[in-house]
């Protein structure tokens, strides 16, 4: 059971495809479980004993938003040690500050290049000391 996994929660089909591609490029050993919104994600967590190595959660989603999802996941006991990384197009300082206080480990602004996303994912998987905000904000 050395299979490592990421749990991606994103309503955007294109972004799920882009993430899978970057993940493959970064580390072939990771499998990716996806949920297309917060409600689905919480259902998956509730109905299984699934513990991913990392959670990536989008913010702007219908039904249950990324914030609500983040808040709910932080309350799940078996997720206590799982890093939850915000994965969003928003670079709003309020979103960054709010999610940090809600207990997110890192904040990753969806990059405009697959190579950049690959590099950032590699950093997440390999480096111990990373800043909260992973992307450079202009």
């Amino acid at each position, binding site marked *: 059971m050395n299979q490592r996994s990421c749990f991606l929660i994103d*309503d955007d089909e*294109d972004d799920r495809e882009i993430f899978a591609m970057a993940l493959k490029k970064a580390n072939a050993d990771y499998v990716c479980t996806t949920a297309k919104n917060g409600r689905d994600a919480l259902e998956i967590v509730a109905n299984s004993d699934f513990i991913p190595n990392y959670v990536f959660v989008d913010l702007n989603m219908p039904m249950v938003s990324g914030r609500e999802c983040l808040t709910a996941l932080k309350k799940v006991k078996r997720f206590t040690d799982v890093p939850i990384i915000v994965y969003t197009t928003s670079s709003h300082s309020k979103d960054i500050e709010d999610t940090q206080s809600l207990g997110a480990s890192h904040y990753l602004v969806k990059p405009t*290049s697959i190579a950049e996303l690959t590099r950032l994912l590699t950093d997440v998987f390999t480096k111990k000391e990373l800043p909260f905000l992973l992307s450079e904000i202009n």
Partner: protein
Amino acid sequence: MESIENTVIETDILTNGMSPGFNASIFNALPVAVYTCNNTGVITYYNNAAIHLWGRSPIIGKDRWCGGFKGYTEDGKELSADFCPYGAMLDKEIALPMDTFILERPNGTFVNVQPNPSLLYDTAGRVTGLINVLTDITAKNKEHHISLNDAVNYKSISATLEKTAEESTKNLKASEERYHRMIDEVQEYAILMLDPDGYILNWNKGAQSIKGYTEQEIIGKNFRVFYLDEDRKAYLPEALIRDASSNGRAKHEGWRVRKDGTKFWGAVVITAIYDDSRNIIGFSKVTRDLTERKLADDRMQVYARDIEFRNKQLEEYAYIASHDLQEPLRKIKVFGEMLQDSLNDPETIKHYLDKINASAARMTTLIKDVLKYSQLASTDELFELTHLNVALQHVLEDYDLALEQKKITVHLTDMPVIMGIPIQLHQLFSNLLSNAIKFSRENPVFTISAQAPLEDDIQNHHQLQKGIPFTKIIFKDNGQGFEQQYGDQIFKMFKRLGNTPGTGIGLALCKKIVENHSGFITVDSEPGFGTTFSIFLPLT
């Protein structure tokens, strides 16, 4: 000289048979003038004081009656030397009261004299002559004159004083009157006096014009009448009186009621009035009608809220520009990059090109919709009488092809005429209709009707409680519907429920159009049963 005269007198008195024991030296010692005449008026004796009084020495046995140089009555007539009231005394042999007279001395000085003649008798009781005592009353007269003057002066002073007092009183009265008039004439302020219990004691023109009561109507009433029902129930007037009693004055601004029931915004200052022992004897109350200012303030607040709202909208646009508009752009770049990595696989190339095209198309739609939203104005001149039936007919005509293809039945009942912006109302119904078509299922039926708001609606929405007549337009479909808990989200920009088609602006646009018309929109939905939009619009 003295001794010679004395000798003469003595001799003469003796000659004329004065009574024995008559001692001339005694007479000379008297400080008053004394002289005697025989029964024909011829002077027979005078003493030293008489010489001093007359300023001369008459010739004994020759000069008659008065002995003086010249005499005058008090009112200035010269007395004849031949006529003398003493003669009458001698004739009638009785004492007569004598008037005072003015004696002129040879040196030209004057003396006021009071004569006091008495008849002289011999031992047989026959009148032998008279003895006259002349008293110099000049000094007394002067006193009398002074005191008279004094009296006159006193009288004039007292008259002056009286006049002054009268004038002062008059001035005081006039001043009081002026003050009263001044207060009375003040138009801009209601100035009144209250007794310690708040009962009105006086009234001015300002009070009448601000509050509408005449003096006759209001004097004696309690000032509570100026307050709103709810303020009276909350004892606001009493609280103000208490405040003024303990702090000297109380200030307050708030809505007040005129006689005719209309309201005005009053700025009130109530000041306690004390007597000398610091007891409160009443209150002055000055009220200013600041309705205009209050309304201007309120308008300012509305403008401020409007500006705040617009700022928020700008922020929203900034967010959209930074987030939603960048999303398709980011995808175009990422898929372009992925396309470059797989140039040898035609199927993957097509896949990524489709993604790129879709993102570009989405971006175009987004930009158009954002522009449409930002251009929704609501200035007064855009409003005109709009027949909603006509507006809806036009929208249905726009969509007749889609309605026919999907075999949608539309029931449209009578719609009211409202003041509205025709192009925006067209957009509103167009968005709702296209939304309903998008989420329609089998046997679609749309019902569009209008009615008065229900009692429930009035209770749930404060906008309907202001007495302005509203119409409720119901836009009902039997399509997919959604969970009611997302009822608020769907009106927000870029909010889409799940992977539904569209930009997420359509319903945000509807909400803004309805708000531009001072109305509001609500939604009721149930998955599988359809959605009902309720649009509340003011009729005037």
